[in-house]
């Protein structure tokens, strides 16, 4: 019997492996991972690990009780659906009965002017975080390029460590996927902590003599910097699947609602590389690069890998994600990037909840320092109701934050 194989030894791959074992599979199970390190959790990399509050051991998952062959430090190079084999970097060909693809993303790097300079960092792995951490000393001038989730968290951590921080983004606002209102609040948050922001302006290049000295912007501004953190998003690791015969959409492997790859029912996907149709997105194909999705989808793909296609369960979990910056916990459920309009439905000083809608239907809720309230919205969102229904429900909720805001219809 050929082994069941999981490609990708991070959160989604680990959870798939655990689900396959807890589902009763007793055959050979192989997990292939590009990094030498055992599976670890990434959210602390831009926060607690970077700040020195957590050590590496605290980021690592306990995978010791999982009965599997771990092929760490081995990169998968090719998926051959004809022979049912995966070619590894060593040249070895690994046969599989079924495979779960969970290869995640890598950081997008800077390829423009000054790309080779010393002092440019990206943040995706523990080793990236440890290298960057060395540079975040009091007084260091840190330029963060990209004001998305990772960029904003690095800016907050570096500020906390006493660095002088500048953040640049070609977008007009910070964390654009959460819409203009949250983006503006987040910008104010960073500005209030002393971060110098250059928004709506692109980077012309990084300059220096071997080592980074400054960043030049398209508007002519020059930012002197010791370190630049390039936080321009992530790229799904699907290059190795080129020519495999699988289909791609939204940058990931196109799957059906059960996370089964379209075209081959022995291939399942989970985490950052999975594109699948979601009911809350009106049945359109989505791809989600967040912790909870990797965790839950990994487990779901593992369970589905154990049964025949007609017995597989649809994966319909509503995405949840969060970011911690300074003293703010910002949490979101649903698909904020799909929203075309946001309404502030409740607010108190320092906390609020906003709901994003598309064509009148609620598709996302975002909470600013309001975890309990978000759980209420999350339940409401499960039904994909018109935003008016949620507004009416929350207006009648005696536990809503402050005096509920009467939104104009």
């Amino acid at each position, binding site marked *: 019997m050929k082994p069941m194989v999981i490609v990708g030894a991070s959160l989604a791959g680990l*959870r798939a492996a655990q689900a396959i074992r807890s589902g009763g599979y007793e055959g050979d199970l192989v997990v292939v991972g590009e990094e030498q390190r055992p599976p670890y*959790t990434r*959210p602390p990399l831009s926060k607690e690990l970077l700040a020195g509050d957590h050590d590496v051991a605290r980021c690592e*998952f306990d995978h010791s009780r999982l009965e599997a062959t771990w092929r760490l430090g081995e990169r998968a190079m090719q998926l051959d659906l004809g022979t049912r084999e995966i070619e590894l970097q060593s040249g070895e060909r690994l046969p599989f009965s079924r495979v779960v693809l969970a290869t995640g993303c890598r950081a997008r790097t800077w390829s423009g002017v000054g790309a080779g300079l010393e002092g440019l960092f990206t943040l995706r792995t523990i080793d990236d975080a440890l290298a960057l951490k060395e540079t975040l000393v009091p007084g260091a001038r840190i330029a963060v390029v990209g004001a998305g989730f990772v960029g904003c968290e690095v800016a907050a951590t570096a500020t906390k460590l006493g660095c002088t921080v500048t953040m640049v983004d070609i977008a007009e606002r910070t964390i654009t996927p959460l819409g203009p209102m949250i983006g503006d609040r987040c910008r104010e948050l960073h500005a209030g902590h002393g971060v110098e922001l250059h928004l709506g302006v692109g980077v012309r290049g990084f300059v220096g003599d071997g080592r980074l000295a400054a960043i030049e912007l398209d508007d002519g501004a020059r930012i002197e910097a010791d370190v630049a953190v390039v936080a321009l998003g992530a790229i799904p690791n699907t290059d190795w699947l080129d020519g495999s015969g699988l289909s791609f959409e939204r940058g990931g492997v196109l799957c059906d609602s059960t996370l089964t790859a379209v075209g081959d029912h022995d291939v399942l996907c989970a985490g950052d590389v999975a594109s699948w149709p979601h009911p809350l997105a009106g049945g359109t194909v989505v791809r989600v690069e967040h*912790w*909870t999705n990797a*965790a*839950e989808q990994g*487990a779901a793909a593992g369970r589905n890998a154990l049964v025949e296609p007609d017995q597989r369960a649809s994966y319909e979990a509503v995405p*949840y994600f*969060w970011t*911690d910056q300074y003293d703010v*916990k910002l*949490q979101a459920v649903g698909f904020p990037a799909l929203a075309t309009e946001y309404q502030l439905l409740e607010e108190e000083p320092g906390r609020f909840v906003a709901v994003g809608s598309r064509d009148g239907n609620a598709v996302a809720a975002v909470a600013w320092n*309001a*975890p*309990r309230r*978000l*759980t209420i919205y*999350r*339940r409401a969102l499960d039904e994909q109701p018109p935003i008016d229904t949620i507004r009416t429900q929350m207006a009648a909720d005696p*536990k809503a934050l402050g005096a509920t805001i009467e939104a104009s219809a």
Partner: protein
Amino acid sequence: MKVHVDMNLCQSHGECAFAAPEVFQLGDDDVLVWKEEVGAELRDQVQAAADACPMMAIRLED
């Protein structure tokens, strides 16, 4: 079955309250409250809550 939560780790994400609403709840002050002793029929729910916890703060004990 005993349910342990390491409150030094908990950051009130509320994932558990969503996965196992009969066991976990966020209080009005956003601090987690939970049933420390639950019946075996809730095992799957509690396991789902533990799996969904971003802080990996939840542990089950038979």
